[in-house]
């Protein structure tokens, strides 16, 4: 089984390489986004030293790393599942001796590694040349960040699986998937660190899994929190991962029983 997933990850990696234009435009889009946020935050800070507990440097690092983290955890497997269902490709997936959802996760992971190495890697290097940027000092900090990033990937992938699975029941849920994308970007702290939200919103978001997707790993990266707090956040991530697994398994079982293969 292990060999299969390694192979799937490798395949997705190769597929990503097959589309060069996509790759180059991806880098440009990320660079523009980071640049825009960098200048935006510069203007917002003005002369102030600190906002919401973060200094200007920490904020810049936060923005850059938030986008770099996104390069790793972001994927479109919900859209892929939707497409598989709409075009009847699930039929092909069902004649293979593997679990469809695990396979999708492995593919997403292949994509994540590709983006991490080829988008985020060179991207972060370029950006560190232009804007003041501070990397975690110790190996422990790096380790904590990467562990937290891995959980971020898993949680985001689970959210995508969940939205993707709804296609089995609704057949068209493009609207839902688009809404999900905006919600995840906003509530995960990509656009705005969670500490900048009003108090009541922070309370509400405390009950939602989204900040585990971006805010936690980015916070760990900036070094604005202690190791103890970092472990706590990773713990939260682990709990969320288990919690979201439940509805996925229930929906999957239901979907199997009422699967309709579209188009002959």
């Amino acid at each position, binding site marked *: 089984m292990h*060999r*299969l997933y*390694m*192979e*799937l990850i490798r*395949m997705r990696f*190769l*597929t990503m390489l*097959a*589309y060069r234009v996509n790759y180059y435009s991806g880098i440009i889009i990320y660079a523009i986004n980071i640049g825009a946020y960098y200048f935006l935050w510069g203007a917002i800070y003005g002369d102030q030293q600190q906002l919401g507990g973060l200094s200007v440097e920490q904020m810049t690092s936060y923005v850059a790393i938030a986008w770099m983290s996104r390069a790793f955890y972001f994927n479109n497997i919900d859209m892929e599942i939707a497409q598989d269902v709409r075009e*009847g*490709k*699930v*039929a*092909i997936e*069902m*004649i*293979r*001796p*593997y*679990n469809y959802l695990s396979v999708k996760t492995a593919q997403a992971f292949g994509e994540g590694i590709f983006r991490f190495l080829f988008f985020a890697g060179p991207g972060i290097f370029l950006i560190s040349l232009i804007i003041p940027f501070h990397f975690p000092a110790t190996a422990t900090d790096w380790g904590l960040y990467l562990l937290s990033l891995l959980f971020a990937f898993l949680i985001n992938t689970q959210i995508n699986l969940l939205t993707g699975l709804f296609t089995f029941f609704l057949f068209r849920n493009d609207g839902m998937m688009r809404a999900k994308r905006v919600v995840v970007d906003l509530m995960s702290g990509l656009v705005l660190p969670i500490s900048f939200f009003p108090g009541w919103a922070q309370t509400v978001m405390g009950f939602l899994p989204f900040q585990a997707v971006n805010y936690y790993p980015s916070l760990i990266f900036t070094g604005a929190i202690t190791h103890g707090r970092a472990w706590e956040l990773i713990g939260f991530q682990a709990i969320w991962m288990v919690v979201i697994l439940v509805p996925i398994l229930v929906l999957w079982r239901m979907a*199997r*029983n009422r*699967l*309709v*293969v579209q*188009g*002959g």
Partner: protein
Amino acid sequence: MIQVKHLQKEFRIHQARSGLGGAFRDLFSREYKTVKAVDDLSFTVEEGEMFALIGENGAGKSTTIKMLTGILTPSDGEIVINGYVPFKQREEYVRSIGVVFGQRSQLWWDLSPLESFRLLKSVYKVDEAEGEKWLTRLIEELEISSFVSQPVRKLSLGQRMRCEVAASLIHKPRLLFLDEPTVGLDVLVKQKIREFLRNLNETENMTILLTTHDVSDIEALCKRVLVMDKGKLIFDGLLSDLKEKWGNGTEVSFQMKKRTSADELRRALGDMPCKITQENEYTLSVQVQQSQEMLPFVLSTVMSSFEVSDVKMLETSTEDIVRNIYQADTEVRDHA
């Protein structure tokens, strides 16, 4: 090997109301209609058999195949294949089968078939050395070696289809399902695939089930035929029996040396139950129902009474038979 008992599949189809008002009402309450796609289907298949499932569009063939391959869950009834219940033990079961969907690709679009084969080998956990030997044989027999390293999107349909067949066999399954495998292919490719399948059936004793619209597929490959209509099985038996039951008998066309009229021929044959048609002044054709007993008599009588320069025998093609079945069925429906 395959046991199917009283298999049923019902679909609930949403009936859209008409008009704007209807669409608005649909938002709150929907009407559904239950459609029986497969209705009380039973049959058994032995190991090493090669058989075809035919029927009009919408007869339930594809739904049946999808239930047999574990993709769809039946509404009712039993299926046991290779000792597994497909929809319950799907992951274990699909290891023992291969499936080709003529209208869907199982290869990765952006990668070469060779990469796909490689991935499928790890999907099915195929033994490295043995798998390689088997794959080499597949590539050789399907004659795909010249394009097997090109991306799938650059292959022609015929090339791709042969790769699809190879992909479905990577793990040497005992049972192979082919759902309309020859749709849109040219005669040469069709022939190549058929030859390959026949060979596979003979050398590996692989059980092969195919659904098709192409009657020549059945003639080339299968002895046994199952005919479905409106979700029901209306015929299960040998192709030769099917021909006898639904065929038009045999037509013999005589080319005479002298001008001969239909009346003269009729006189010579006496009151034999047969149909005589005059094709031109020298050519007459005789149509007989039960070929085995009547044919020798017709031949010997005509040969002895007239000077014959050429004889042609025209057996009803399976294509005509299929047409007959479909038409007969429409008539029954019209009368009912």
